[in-house]
């Protein structure tokens, strides 16, 4: 048996990597992917605790998280395509106008 | 050319220029098409031709009349007999002679057989382009029968050089009538077979209906002829309008379409094959006896003058413009190839359609690059 704390450390590592990705990368697509990393870190936590508490509710919430992740990816990529059509770039630091 | 700016380096976000050919499985030889695509939608096109240019017309100006005849077989090389007929009749017109009736009857039969062979080749490859793998093998089976008749008649299958200026070189072989009659008897069932595979097929209908529409006005403006023109609803067939060979002797109809789309062109060609059979059946029953060669000299030396003679080749109006200066060679020779002129309609037909339709439309025009490039 691997203790739950090991899963938590793994999840913390993935979360940090995701946060670094979101904060530092210029490419919007990679930023979105980093968000997926963060959400996965959350899921690992939920499922590790579900095992510890022998409760299936952690799984249910992980499913909700995956739902949200799917929705987020769809909307995020939709915005990205709309943005790319207008500006020909996907760099976050060039997204500096409130309208065009 | 280049009217949509292929050379422009910066295109819109979704626009790419796709080069189709000259080595592409569906460009029927060495046609090269540059397509400006928005996603998969065609915004413009440019046909780049000339990869098969051999200077046939110029060769014609440097050969005696008789020696040039084999060359015309090699323009539209899937309808060699029709080419030969057009050239021979053009020179005959220049000479002021007419082939004897028997020759004209045999010419009509062979030309109509050639039309069927050409349409069969078109049908098979067109269906193959649209993704139906099987019809091409069926059509080649029947085309083989036609080619066998050619082979027995003149020894060649593809580039036949079947006719001579003034008539025919060879008398028909024993059993020619029976062979032709047998073909005419068997073939309608085969056409039914093709139609069973394709005409009612939902996918075939979806792929061909409303694809590559060419209205009658557009078709006339672009100088399009042949089945492509008739599918647009214009009842124009040189066999009826300016009868040549023995066509004025036979009953047949000119099938026309209504919408001018790919499906109509398909139907028109299928109907034409049936009409060709009608002509063949009538002709073979009434071949007159008599000589097969008119009185032309050994050396053909037409009087100075010029003549334009056109026939209804399988692909459209095939015209020969021959200028004689009284020597044994034409001083100017020009071929009006139907494929070349019909290819002009490609851009009109293809705009707004998808890449898959490009293939269907190239197929439906029925081009032969040997004729386009000459």
């Amino acid at each position, binding site marked *: 048996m691997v203790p739950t704390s090991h899963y938590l450390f793994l999840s913390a590592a993935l979360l940090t990597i995701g946060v670094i990705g979101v904060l530092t990368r210029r490419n919007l697509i990679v930023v979105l992917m980093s968000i997926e990393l963060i959400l996965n870190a959350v899921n690992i936590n939920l499922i590790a605790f579900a095992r510890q508490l022998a409760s299936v509710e952690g799984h249910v919430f992980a499913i909700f998280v995956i739902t949200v992740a799917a929705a987020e990816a769809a909307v995020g990529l939709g915005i990205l395509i709309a943005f790319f059509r207008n500006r020909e770039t996907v760099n976050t630091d060039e997204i500096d106008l409130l309208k065009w | 050319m280049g009217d949509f700016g292929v050379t422009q380096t910066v295109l819109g976000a979704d626009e790419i220029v*796709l080069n189709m050919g000259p080595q592409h499985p569906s460009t029927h030889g060495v046609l090269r098409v540059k397509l400006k695509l928005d996603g998969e939608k065609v915004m413009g096109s440019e046909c780049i031709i000339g990869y098969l240019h051999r200077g046939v017309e110029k060769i014609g100006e440097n050969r005696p009349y008789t020696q040039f005849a084999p060359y015309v077989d090699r323009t539209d090389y899937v309808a060699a007999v029709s080419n030969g007929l057009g050239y021979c009749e053009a020179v005959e017109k220049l000479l002021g002679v007419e082939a004897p009736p028997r020759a004209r009857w045999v010419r009509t039969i062979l030309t109509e057989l050639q039309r069927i062979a050409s349409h069969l080749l078109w049908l098979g490859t067109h269906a193959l*382009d649209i993704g139906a793998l099987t019809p091409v093998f069926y059509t080649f089976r029947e085309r083989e029968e036609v080619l066998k008749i050619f082979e027995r008649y003149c020894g060649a299958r593809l580039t036949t050089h079947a006719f001579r200026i003034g008539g025919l070189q060879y008398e028909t072989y024993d059993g020619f009538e029976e062979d032709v009659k047998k073909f005419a008897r068997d073939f309608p069932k085969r056409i039914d077979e093709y139609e069973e595979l394709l005409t009612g097929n939902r996918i075939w209908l*979806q792929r061909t*209906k409303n694809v590559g529409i060419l209205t009658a006005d557009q078709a006339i403006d672009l100088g399009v002829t042949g089945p492509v023109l008739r599918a647009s609803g214009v009842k124009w067939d040189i066999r009826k309008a300016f009868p040549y060979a023995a066509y004025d002797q036979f009953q047949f109809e000119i099938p026309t379409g209504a919408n001018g789309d790919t*499906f109509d062109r398909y139907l028109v060609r299928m109907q034409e094959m049936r009409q060709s059979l009608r002509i063949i059946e009538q002709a073979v029953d009434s071949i007159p006896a008599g000589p097969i060669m008119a009185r032309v000299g050994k050396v053909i030396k037409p009087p100075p003058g010029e003549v334009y003679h056109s026939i209804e080749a399988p692909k459209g109006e095939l015209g020969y413009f021959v200028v004689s200066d009284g020597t044994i060679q034409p001083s100017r020779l020009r071929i009006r190839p139907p494929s070349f002129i019909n290819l002009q309609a490609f851009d009109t037909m293809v705009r707004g359609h998808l890449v*898959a339709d490009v293939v269907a439309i190239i197929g439906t025009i029925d081009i032969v690059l040997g004729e386009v490039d000459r």
Partner: protein
Amino acid sequence: MAELIDALQPYLIPTLRVVIAFLVLSLIAAAMIWIERKVLAHLQVRLGPMRVGPHGLLQPIADTLKLLLKEDIVPAEADRFIFLYAPVISVIAALTPFAFIPFAANDRAPDVNVALLFIVGVSSLGIFGTILGGWASNSHYPLMGALRSTAQLVSYEVALGFALVSALLLGGTLSMRGIVEKQAEFGVWFVFLQPVAFFILFVAALAETNRNPFDLPEAESELVAGFHTEYSGFRFALFFMAEYSAMVLVSAIATTLFLGGWLRPFANTEVVIQGFDVLSLLDWMPVAVFGVITLWLLKEIPGADSNTHRLALLVFAVVFGGVTAALLLPGVLPAVQGVFWFLFKVFIFLFCFIWFRGTFPRYRFDQLMRLGWHFMIPVAIVNVIFCGIGLLLWQQWDWNLAGALWVGNLATLLVALLLAGRTPAGQAA
């Protein structure tokens, strides 16, 4: 060390079984090349391969050797790493799901209770091989092929999923074994209870495996060869094998879910004539099939082209005759019943794939998408709803199961007709 072996113990037999399944599959894929070429040829009034071995029987070996010996070309501007490994993804994704498919009642396939989900999930990973291979080639045609196939696979996966749902509603489990056992319990294959779902599954399977009339990603007349235009040699062979394995996979899924898996036809029925169950003669079908093949091979020997061909025919005849003889050994026939019927059904499926390829033209991309989203998916959803209602009526109000489901099927067909009427054939984009 002993601890390690103990720990690995439960994994050994499944692993072994998976390896065997992979080997058998490679053989089937190779045989499929020959079968496809032959069947297609005979549909098209020609003979097909005839030169390599008698009736081209050794053609698959020749093809494989040729592909293995060809130069492995990587385009100059390609993304080398991805280009090299994309075919591997395809093959893995196509082969791994077989680990979960029980070929027979006595097959030791791991009985996972989410097997169906895993099969669908892992096989859908094959898409990455296509999309990455197309992208890494750095060329227009493969890229367009990749984009097309991505859109196509994603769209038809939805319809496929819904078609599977009705089978697992009836089966009440996600375990492949459980679904087959349920069919044995009902005494009727699910195809007779859910024909619409089976039809949707079949069409979606054609689309998923890029087969005619949905072979747009590799439409040779349009995109040269689609996503694998730039591939040659061994890597092309891998894509090829992935494609055929995927075909076998969807056939195997359909067989398990709708055609009763390893069950013999009429397994629960008896037609007794003079105290003898006539239908039990079907148990002898494997012997009959292999025996007939042996006899045919023997019959061909005198008329073969050369002594080499005669020898090859003889070898094949001995192999098949040996199999026939082995089947007659006591205990063998019952043991292979399941596998035989499973593969028999799979091959019927595969034959239909080839048959369709010889018959239909190709859809256009927008038509394909419209068919998927405007017809297949709505019909599949409606079908699942009616299937659920039928099951409810059966469980709560004691309706006749088949009756309730058939009412649902007819209602679905009605909806399908309405939908089909709304999208007339030949509508341009």
